[in-house]
């Protein structure tokens, strides 16, 4: 039990009376040093999550959403990765300044992660019961037997049928949906304060996607956890998220409460994403697609990174990097939680 005592000693003194957000990412930069130069994967990301809140991070592949999550978890490959600037405040403490051992104790116990492909993310030669039980054995010092009992209990919680009979099975003996449930069970095992789900449903077929998302949302409500949901699937987001951050080329380009974003996007990129969803009422018409490709991260375009693909681009977009403007309603009142990194956000919202 000594491990738990120490963990609490590390976290509690400052976090007991702490009132701010659970997780607060401030001006985070991540770059990768490659043979072709420095790839700037994350360029000044700010976001925060409260307990019980769900933040969806949206964006194409290579927009830096997964890298941000890995930086929070502390599982970036360093080198080649580097974090030149930024703070990741967890309960008021900057995790980037912690020792490796302090961070390890937070990982899995206070902040847990669910990965995209459960088959490759689970160890193929260890039984699921062992991998689940490992959480209890390492972080809580339980015996092998007690850990297995807890593992069965957890498999029950994520609604795996006949959990006791299947605890000694191996990952390849489960279906895709069941495997992802095991990943969820592993992440939730120690009732962490924050869960980061990196495209948890992308590898699943559509009918299973909904079940897994419902399960995740239900457990999140029950445990009052913060959830960062990383996805490129706008459909998944609408049901579960409280607020959305849209990322492009390592920056947040738009931030909004979930339903307002769908109703009225404030950035041409978000607008493009929403218009590229197939809709039944537009059957027969050509589906909109954002032209061009995501930028090469070693050579991000000057000005607004989206300008080469933007239908609204003007000269100013090619020279000036737009800051993340807080958005206001046409009558001047502030729209709570909304911001857009577009020089022409007013035109976008109203146009």
């Amino acid at each position: 039990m000594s491990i738990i005592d120490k963990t609490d000693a590390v976290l509690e003194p400052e976090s007991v009376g702490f009132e701010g957000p659970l997780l607060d990412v401030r001006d985070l930069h991540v770059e990768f040093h490659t043979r072709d130069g420095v790839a700037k994967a994350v360029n000044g990301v700010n976001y925060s999550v409260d307990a019980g809140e769900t933040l969806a991070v949206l964006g194409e592949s290579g927009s830096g959403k997964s890298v941000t999550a890995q930086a929070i978890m502390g599982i970036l490959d360093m080198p080649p990765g580097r974090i030149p600037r930024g703070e990741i405040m967890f309960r008021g403490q900057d995790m980037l300044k912690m020792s490796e051992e302090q961070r390890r104790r937070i990982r899995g116990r206070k902040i847990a992660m669910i990965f995209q492909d459960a088959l490759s993310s689970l160890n193929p030669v260890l039984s699921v019961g062992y991998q689940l039980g490992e959480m209890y054995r390492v972080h809580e010092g339980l015996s092998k037997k007690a850990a297995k009992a807890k593992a069965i209990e957890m498999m029950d919680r994520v609604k795996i049928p006949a959990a006791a009979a299947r605890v000694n099975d191996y990952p390849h003996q489960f279906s895709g949906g069941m495997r992802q449930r095991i990943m969820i069970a592993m992440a939730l095992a120690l009732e962490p304060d924050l869960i980061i789900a990196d495209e948890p449903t992308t590898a699943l077929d559509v009918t299973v996607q909904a079940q897994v998302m419902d399960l995740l949302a239900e457990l999140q409500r029950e445990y009052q956890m913060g959830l960062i949901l990383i996805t490129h699937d706008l459909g998944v987001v609408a049901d579960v998220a409280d607020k959305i951050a849209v990322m492009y080329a390592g920056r947040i380009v738009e931030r909004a409460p979930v339903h307002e974003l769908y109703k009225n996007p404030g950035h041409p990129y978000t607008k493009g994403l929403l218009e590229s969803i197939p809709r039944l009422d537009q059957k027969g018409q050509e589906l909109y697609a954002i032209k061009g490709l995501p930028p090469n991260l070693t050579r991000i375009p000057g000005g607004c990174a989206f300008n080469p693909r933007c239908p609204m681009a003007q000269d100013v977009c090619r020279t000036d990097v737009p800051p993340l403007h807080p958005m206001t309603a046409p009558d001047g009142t502030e729209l709570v939680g909304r911001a857009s990194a577009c020089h022409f956000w007013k035109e976008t919202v109203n146009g």
Partner: protein
Amino acid sequence: MGRYVVRRLLQMIPVFIGSTLLIFLMMYVLPGDPVRALMGDQAFDPAVVANIRKDLGLDLPLWQQYANYLGGLVQGDFGTEIVSQRPVADIIADAFPVTVRLTLFAFAFTVLVGVGLGIVAGLRPNTMQDRGLLALTLVLISMPSFVLGFLMQYLFAFQWQLIQPNVRDSENFGELLLPAIVLGSLSLAYVARLTRTSMAENLRADYMRTAVAKGLPKRRIVGVHLMRNSLIPVVTFLGTDIGNLMTGAIVTEGIFNVKGVGNAIFEALIRREGATVVGIASLIVLVYLATSLLVDLLYAVLDPRIRYA
């Protein structure tokens, strides 16, 4: 699992018969005649030779000779050497333990040093120590074992006088050390490279990222999650390698004058003692078959995705 083992054991029978037949035929087509050799340079009566041949059954058709041999083998009779009149079983009983000792010694050396070096290099791919290992193993792989053997013998025994050049007492592990290192060096190079590559590859696997994200201590991540996966190909290689080491011992035994099967089979070949050659070679075939079965079973234990029905 049980049925799989039985099937594999049954499959060994035709393999065993086939390989003994092949070696038997090869001995037959070799020029020379042990009975004629028995007479030496003195004048002899062809009728006497024919008589001896008849007594030994060497005048029978080939298939009958083979059938007789196999019949004896099934009853545990390996036959008798023609010149020395020693039972082949005795020769095997003398030589085999020596070679087995040497092989196991070399095997232990291969496993400990090879896997050890592989882990050191594999945990930090593309560093100095990794490159160093690749260079060292490349040298070992490209150098024939007799070159390495004579080189070591020259350096350690003649230049520095640290050891005896020949093995006089095969139960003295100090004397067997150098032959074992020479014998194991090629396998060591392969094992080290295989371990290194397998570790470096698995290090990048998704489940390793998961293990880190679970907040496991580094020792556990490497010891349980990485090693379990990385050693699967190494174990399969090591299993088949026992047979290779035994046959490789023939050359090493020659260099260091170890009185093992290599020595025995070499002498038997010179004297055209077919029964001895076939007997020893068949035993080595059996060792091969047994270790490969063992490896296949071990494979299923290590990797749960493999199941035998």
